[in-house]
């Protein structure tokens, strides 16, 4: 499929609802799942960068292109999704069904792909990871299920002439990548600071549509949710308590600083 240059883009941002990053988290020893009722639910902070990138693209294109938010979450998360609408996204679609509960990364990507196909898309944006599971695997899996190129860890993103171009962060530098649309890109935190939802945005978001799609609305051929999960958490152990730090004793500040610098250099930390 080739996207004509003059066509408006359908930008879809996939987001996750996560427990408040600042709250104490607790894991149920029986289910070995995070207790989600214990903390306030928020938009995954990493995903706000993807929303910002989507909104900036829409503003740059200024051609009536739209930003749609998609998330797989219970309907109780509706008001959290509305924050993305208050930032300026046009509409949201929630994939909500008890059958989705307990999905692992595979099942989540599979369901999201079904939802995004149903919505229709030219460009899918995601964050790089979630603050709860922190696997960082979803963007790749989602691109795979959508059958489109996945341009991960983008710190800059541009769309022109039916192609997406990103500056990709790597451990050693940057790559510039380009791919034809439709495509998926995951956006890093160095892209652009997410905007605040303005008061006008909050008021406007009240009138924006949040559609809900159930299992039956999607083309899903395999078991998803806890039943379909391929990954099983078999055991949970707390990380070992941190050992006592090393104390440097020196004659004066300069000597102490030299010892610390040498210590860090030995470990390639400087």
């Amino acid at each position, binding site marked *: 499929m080739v996207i004509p240059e003059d066509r408006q883009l359908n930008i879809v941002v996939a987001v996750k609802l996560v427990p408040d990053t600042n709250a104490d988290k607790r894991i149920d020893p029986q289910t070995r799942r995070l207790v989600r009722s214990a903390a306030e639910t928020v938009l995954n902070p990493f995903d706000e960068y993807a929303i910002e990138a989507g909104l900036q693209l829409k503003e740059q294109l200024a051609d009536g292109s739209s930003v749609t938010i998609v998330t797989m979450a219970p309907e109780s998360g509706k008001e959290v999704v509305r*924050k993305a609408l*208050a930032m300026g996204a046009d509409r949201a679609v929630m994939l909500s069904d008890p059958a989705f509960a307990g999905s692992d990364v595979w099942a989540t990507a599979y369901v999201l792909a079904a939802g995004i196909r149903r919505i229709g898309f030219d460009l899918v944006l995601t964050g790089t990871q979630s603050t709860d599971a922190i696997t960082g695997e979803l963007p790749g899996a989602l691109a795979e299920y959508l059958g489109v190129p996945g341009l991960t860890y983008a710190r800059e993103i541009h769309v022109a002439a039916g192609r997406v171009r990103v500056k990709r962060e790597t451990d050693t530098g940057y790559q510039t990548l380009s791919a034809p649309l439709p495509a998926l890109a995951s956006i890093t935190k160095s892209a652009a600071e997410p905007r*605040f939802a*303005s*008061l*006008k*945005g909050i*008021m406007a978001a*009240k009138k924006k549509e949040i559609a809900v799609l159930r299992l039956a609305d999607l083309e899903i051929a395999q078991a998803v949710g806890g039943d379909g999960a391929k990954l099983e958490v078999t055991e949970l152990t707390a990380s070992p308590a941190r050992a006592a730090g090393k104390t440097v004793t020196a004659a004066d500040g300069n000597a102490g600083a030299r010892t610390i610098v040498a210590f860090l250099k030995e470990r390639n930390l400087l």
Partner: protein
Amino acid sequence: MIAQQRVSLFELTAEQRAIGELARDFARDEIAPHIERWDREHTFPRELYTKLNAVGLMGMLVPEAYGGVQTGYLSYALAIEEVAKVDAGTAVTLSVHSMICGAIAALGSAAQKDAWLAKVGSEDCIAGFALTEPDAGSDAAAIRGRAARDGDGYVLNGRKQWCTNGGYAGVVMAMFRTGGAGSKGISAFLVDPATPGVAVEKVTRKLGIHTSDTVDLAFADARIPAQALLGHEGAGLSAALGALTAGRIGIAAQAVGILAACLDASVKFAKERSAFGRPIGAFEGIAFKIARMATDLEAARLLVYRAAALADAGRAFAVDASKAKLFASTAARVHASEAVQIHGGYGYTTEFPVERYYRDAKITEIYEGTSEIQQLIIARSLLGRLGD
């Protein structure tokens, strides 16, 4: 009888929560990283208000037709509380600005609304307030600053003291005497501070709220057009007191924010600090202070929400606003002191924020009507003016 709108007290709407969250996120990102320095250096962060304007928080009491968002008083109180939790100084700038927005919306002529509401509501123009004079504080009817009718305008002379936002204002709501002695001789004006003859004479240093701008404005033969008169001649004191009545919701919310910050800091410190082999929160002497702090915070908050909800429903709220301000400001002052006490020696240092909360809390008992004035208002609502 007109059916009265039911006031729901115990559940905020999703939109109200979203506005509170916006103010919380804004304060966390745009104020918290700088507040220690701003407080230390007595900085009025002018550029901060450009950002507050951009997200719409300067137009909370401005109708949509004039570029504002008109969220109502409850949302406004929630936003002020969240901002005050990080910086009480910014909160009072916002409160006074909004109070004047509300006064222009309520009392302004069509021409005045056209001229000023869009500016203060969405065009980065801060509103200031000028009532107090060196010899007229709580006794506001005693002001002497004079507005003399002269042809098609007025000529202002006098000195206004402790004008909030006065040094950065694009418009000042100022009260001057146009008639004889007493409350009926006072009129309110919307003055452009760029008017020749208007000058900032003195920037006042204060115990707390260092990020708030407090100046003396001198008026020397300052000529303003007749259209600057807000309402009619002689209605100025009632305009000012009406504005201050609404302003009390803002200040009460500011006190709630300070109190909430005291509670957060105290809970954190009581868990982290150990003495005699236990976290100090394990001692009842500390734990009970925190319990009382949390209880008074909740009580103060509910009083503020109630006054705000009454205002939003178009019902009488003056006495409720006085009760909210009286209770919240007293609680803020008392518990800021307790928060310092919980922190011990650390609390007295500038390394911890509670010394700032302690300095900031006191003013809430003084401005927008002292606690004594609030008690007069509450008592008169029950007793009438006995002996007058």
